[in-house]
């Protein structure tokens, strides 16, 4: 039922807000911001139809602390609207840059004083959002971010190479001042600058972040995927005939893994991957479906098995977005014919 989905979403929203309240307080951010988050989120959900009509929050059995009038959905958003006008001006022209300086650990320059340069980030940052993602990625120490997959490359910071130069030059001056060897200053700066750039470059390669276009990276990824697959082939039932699974190739991994490049040159020694076989088909399908959003199911799987061309799976705890509707399920069984 649509109402049930709305109720669940409202519950989740309330739950999240109440649970992050403490975090907000720890960060020294006021309730106003929290309320703004809640209101914005709710408005968006309403706009995209995830929530319908009037939901009685008080009826929901849960532990969200009842607080501000923002909860009362029967009140049209008149009051908050006024409040937003003022903060909007402040938000558009913030008096100071982002509270926490973008902490970008530039490789080769581990000097913590670098972080205190407030104007640095704004010089080269293409957008604050990508910087934020990068800082989150680097701080959190994991490749995923809360946006779409391109983050592994963004965390690479190709622009950072140039910045290194700028920063190095900036840093060299105090060194120059304190250095006794005036004659070798320029030499010192250049070589160290270069060295740092090289170090950075080699750092990239050793880190393996950049999806390599030369084919060697491709091989690595393919191999690792195959190994992964073989491991899984043992673990899953009915699922140990690698020969059948032509589709499981390196070309198009799922969320969170770097995309191996489709290179033209290096395929001579390997069987054709048929990478592009499905592209046309996918594009065709996309065109047809473009009018409404792509139908999608996000869930957990308990078991996936196959007998000849008949696939069976059991899923649980899923959200389905079909025909512009959100449907939630606790359990699902699937039977597919390949």
């Amino acid at each position, binding site marked *: 039922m649509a109402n049930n989905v709305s109720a669940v979403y409202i519950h989740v929203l309330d739950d999240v807000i109440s649970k992050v309240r403490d975090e907000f307080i720890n*960060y020294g951010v006021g309730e106003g911001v929290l309320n703004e988050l809640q209101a914005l989120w709710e408005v968006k*959900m309403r706009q995209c*139809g995830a929530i319908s009509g009037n939901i009685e929050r008080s009826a929901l059995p849960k532990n969200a602390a009842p607080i501000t009038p923002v909860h009362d959905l029967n009140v049209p958003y008149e009051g908050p609207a006024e409040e937003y006008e003022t903060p909007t001006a402040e938000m558009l022209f913030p008096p100071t840059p982002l509270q926490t300086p973008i902490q970008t650990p530039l490789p080769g320059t581990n000097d913590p004083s670098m972080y205190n340069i407030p104007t640095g980030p704004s010089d080269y940052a293409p957008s604050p959002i990508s910087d934020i993602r990068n800082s989150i990625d680097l701080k959190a120490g994991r490749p995923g971010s809360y946006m779409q997959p391109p983050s592994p490359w963004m965390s690479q910071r190709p622009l950072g190479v140039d910045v290194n130069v700028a920063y190095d030059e900036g840093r060299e001056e105090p060194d120059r001042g304190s250095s006794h060897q005036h004659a070798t200053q320029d030499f010192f700066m250049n070589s160290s600058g270069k060295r740092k750039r090289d170090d950075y470059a080699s750092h990239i390669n050793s880190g393996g972040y950049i999806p390599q276009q030369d084919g060697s990276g491709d091989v690595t990824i393919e191999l690792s995927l195959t190994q*992964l697959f073989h491991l899984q082939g043992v673990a899953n039932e009915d699922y140990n005939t690698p020969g059948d699974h032509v589709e499981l190739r390196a070309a198009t991994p799922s969320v969170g893994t770097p995309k191996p490049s489709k290179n033209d040159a290096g395929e001579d020694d390997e069987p054709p991957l048929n990478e592009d076989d499905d592209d046309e088909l996918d594009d065709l399908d996309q065109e047809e479906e473009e009018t409404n959003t792509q139908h*999608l199911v996000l869930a957990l799987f308990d078991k996936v098995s196959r007998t000849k061309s008949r*696939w069976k799976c059991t899923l649980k705890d899923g959200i389905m977005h079909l025909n512009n509707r959100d*449907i939630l399920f606790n359990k699902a069984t699937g039977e*597919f014919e390949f």
Partner: protein
Amino acid sequence: MRLGFRPTSFSLKYRDQRSSIGMCLTETLDEMVSTGTLSPELAYQVLVQFDKSMTEALETQVKSKVSVKGHLHTYRFCDNVWTFILQDAVFKSEDRLEQVKRVKIVACDSKLLTQ
């Protein structure tokens, strides 16, 4: 039952693509961060909490059962995530029937989350 929470690709899922609630939250957070209202770290904390809350809600609040049938066009298993693309699929739940020409199913391993 308490899940051991791991921010893996699973946590990307609910915020991903067209999960309305996840997308709305991500958009909201993006806006607030880009205007400086919210710090990135705090935004991240909100998302982490969202994953937990969403998972818990799906487990405890939703009791419906659904069956899916269709033609399997593509299957993929990578990083412990199954991706199926079905064509002409029928989704049957107790009170509703949905038919779609094409649907993508992304499923993470439930065992990865349970202790």
